[in-house]
């Protein structure tokens, strides 16, 4: 504990050591309990997504015109939608879409962001300073949802394109994070020593710098998954994400909004699931950050 509070730079402000220690301890305690909870729920959601076919009581796309807009019941736990489909089953399958969207779009952001950030930070120079950094500035000054919306419209509606769009929008965050880490490490002795002994830039980046950036990347990636899920739901709400009849929480919400007075369950359940998923992942991400804190620079 003593050691960790000295190294803690999460909130870089002056405070008395005594209070700060107390605060860190309390925060850790509180956050860890929540993090465990968040991790548990996240695991449960992943489990649900994987085993959706066995868990869902109905086919999520099966329509039953004689059971349209039915309230929650024993047969239909979360009620039925405007085509008589089981909302509970659709919500379960929707977990697949949301988690997939979160993971894949962050994956895309990492695949582009990590190499660009590494190279840009290591070599610096004109391209780094005036092209890559300014490009990330430009991308970050356009609201993420707006950029994703425009990109998704360019690429065409659909889950795959939505994931690509979200991935691209998230990329500058990773470029900047990794570049910053590289800048902090490139002047270190071991890098200097490596350079002096003639090790190639490539192996320095790969063997010495990259491993040191993994912890912050992990934290950022976890939190980015939560953000990506929200953006995917927003795009689907606007009709640019998952295409019908595939269940997506965002598009279920959009359908449900038209029935808030007659069949509110259509919107309420998928909305609640988005919230639960995002908060769990956020809690889990915060937990990882605190866990890794002592090692982070």
């Amino acid at each position, binding site marked *: 504990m003593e050691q960790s509070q000295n190294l803690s730079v999460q909130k870089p402000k002056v405070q008395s050591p005594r209070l700060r220690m107390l605060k860190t301890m309390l925060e850790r305690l509180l956050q860890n309990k929540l993090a465990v909870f968040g991790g548990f729920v996240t695991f449960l959601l992943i489990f649900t997504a994987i085993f959706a076919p066995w868990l869902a009581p109905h086919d999520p796309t099966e329509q039953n*015109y004689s059971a349209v807009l039915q309230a929650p019941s024993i047969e239909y736990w979360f009620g039925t939608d405007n085509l008589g489909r089981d909302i509970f089953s659709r919500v379960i399958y929707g977990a697949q879409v949301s988690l997939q969207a979160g993971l894949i779009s962050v994956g895309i952001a990492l695949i582009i962001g990590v190499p660009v950030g590494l190279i840009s930070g290591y070599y610096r120079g004109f391209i780094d300073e005036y092209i890559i950094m300014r490009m990330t500035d430009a991308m970050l000054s356009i609201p993420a949802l707006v950029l994703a919306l425009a990109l998704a419209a360019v690429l065409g509606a659909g889950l795959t394109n939505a994931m690509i769009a979200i991935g691209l929008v998230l990329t500058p965050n990773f470029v900047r994070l990794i570049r910053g880490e590289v800048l902090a490490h490139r002047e270190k002795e071991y890098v200097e020593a490596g350079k002096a002994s003639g090790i190639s830039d490539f192996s320095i980046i790969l063997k010495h710098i990259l491993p040191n950036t993994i912890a912050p990347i992990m934290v950022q990636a976890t939190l980015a998954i939560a953000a990506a899920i929200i953006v995917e739901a927003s795009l689907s709400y606007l009709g640019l994400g998952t295409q019908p009849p595939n269940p997506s929480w965002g598009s279920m919400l959009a359908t449900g909004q038209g029935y808030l007075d007659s069949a509110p369950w259509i919107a309420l359940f998928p909305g609640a699931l988005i919230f639960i998923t995002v908060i769990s992942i956020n809690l889990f991400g915060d937990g990882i950050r605190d866990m890794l804190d002592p090692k982070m620079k």
Partner: protein
Amino acid sequence: MDDQMYSKKLLTTLLLTLLMVLAACGGNDQNDEAAGGEEEPEDLTNNDAEDTLVVGLDDDPPLLDPHLSTAQVESQIFKAVYETLINVDENLDPIPGLAKDWDVSEDGLTYTFYLQEGVTFHDGADFNAEAVKYNFERILDEDLGSPNASDLRLIEEMSVEDEYTFVVELEEPFAPFLSGLSHRAGQMVSPEAAEDESIDLSNEPVGTGPFQFVDRTAQSHLEFERHDDYWGDQPDYQYLEYHAFSNEDTRITNLVSGDLDIVNRVAHKDLEQLEENPEINMSEEDGIGFQGLMLNTDREPFDNQKVRQAMNYAVDREAITEVVFHNGAEPAVSPFAPSSWANNPDLEVPDREVEKAQELLEESGVEDLSFTLTVSPSPAEQQLSEMLKSMLDEVGFNVEIEQVEFGAILDRMYEGDFDIARLGWSGRVDPDGNAYSWFHTDETYNFTGSSNEQLDELLIDARTTVDQSERQEMYHEAAEILWDETPYIFLYHENDYKPMKDNVQGFNHVPDGLIRPADLTLE
């Protein structure tokens, strides 16, 4: 970094004060609201509510120049500010408009129009035969590029007989000519305003109608005022406003709360709720359009007639009209609505026959039955497309739904880049308007790529024949050929609904779906 935070007291204080002021303002306002705010929303309008009629539209009308107009919603506005040479009544029969009478020669080539006298445009210009000639010439002017020129294209000669008599000679008989004049091609704009460079008719319409243009707030609303020199009966109220609400829920909310007096379109899912509302009167009328699926017959698998026919039996039209349209639509088998004289009563709506569809698919020998169904992203369209997918997948198709904005759908159609598109037609008064340009080889909206000589001949004959019973025969036959050829899956004819507040009286429901504001009175 750390201690810098503490040395900005001035900035801090400044910004804090600002935030506090903001917070205080916001807070007070809300409190005032909670205490004194009315829950009943007030009228949207600035004008005296007693003397104002407010119409809710489903979209903002882009172009208010009737000769350039292409959007359906624009025609709603034209009924206030413009008048047509010919009008139509509830049975879609022609009645006098700006032409108080007309003669058609035996051979169907010469039309003589006797015009209303004492009519002036809102800018003071006189309406007379010269003005009609000016308008026709304007529509036919290639520089203007009027999309409505085709209604007048057969005019060979026009002449001003005297001040109020106007004669048109056609190259060949054209049965839909009069009905065209009841639509955009018959709208009369002020020649003076049209010539005036400083007036943009697309934004400031100048006609002879009962209401004259006052103001427009782009993509929001339009204001009109009673035209004091109007030649006909003066409207019952002074001000008329059109407010656009593309969101169907908001539109209805505003009607129910009392902000709107009448609405031009309603989502079918809200029909029951509105009909139960004691303060709302609902007028219902058969529509004149048709809705369904356009098949790309240049592409697999729809280049095969049996595959196309299989679709006709795979879809359950009754279920669609019930679930999506809450029985506010009629199942369709042809482009002519059941109420039209052109409708063929022998063509019955088939039940859904899964086995027959599967047999047809088997006979076709086509292996790959996967395709993309392109629809626009409205809630009802989405619901419909999901039903279609479920029905078609069951007989052996493999449907992928793609939601694309309406404009983009059109784009794909022009490029021929689609498998099946959900595209229908609001309909025209004359059956020719529902058939010729849609199903004649290579005509404007025949995106299906289909071509049938016999059908082409019938459609041409039907528009150049004057006698209605002969035309009726032809359209009956044409509908049968279309059913057999199946370039298009007719699904339903949408009924037209106009919900209005109970103090709105005098509404005259013409199947073209246009609200004629001068008919309405406020109690």
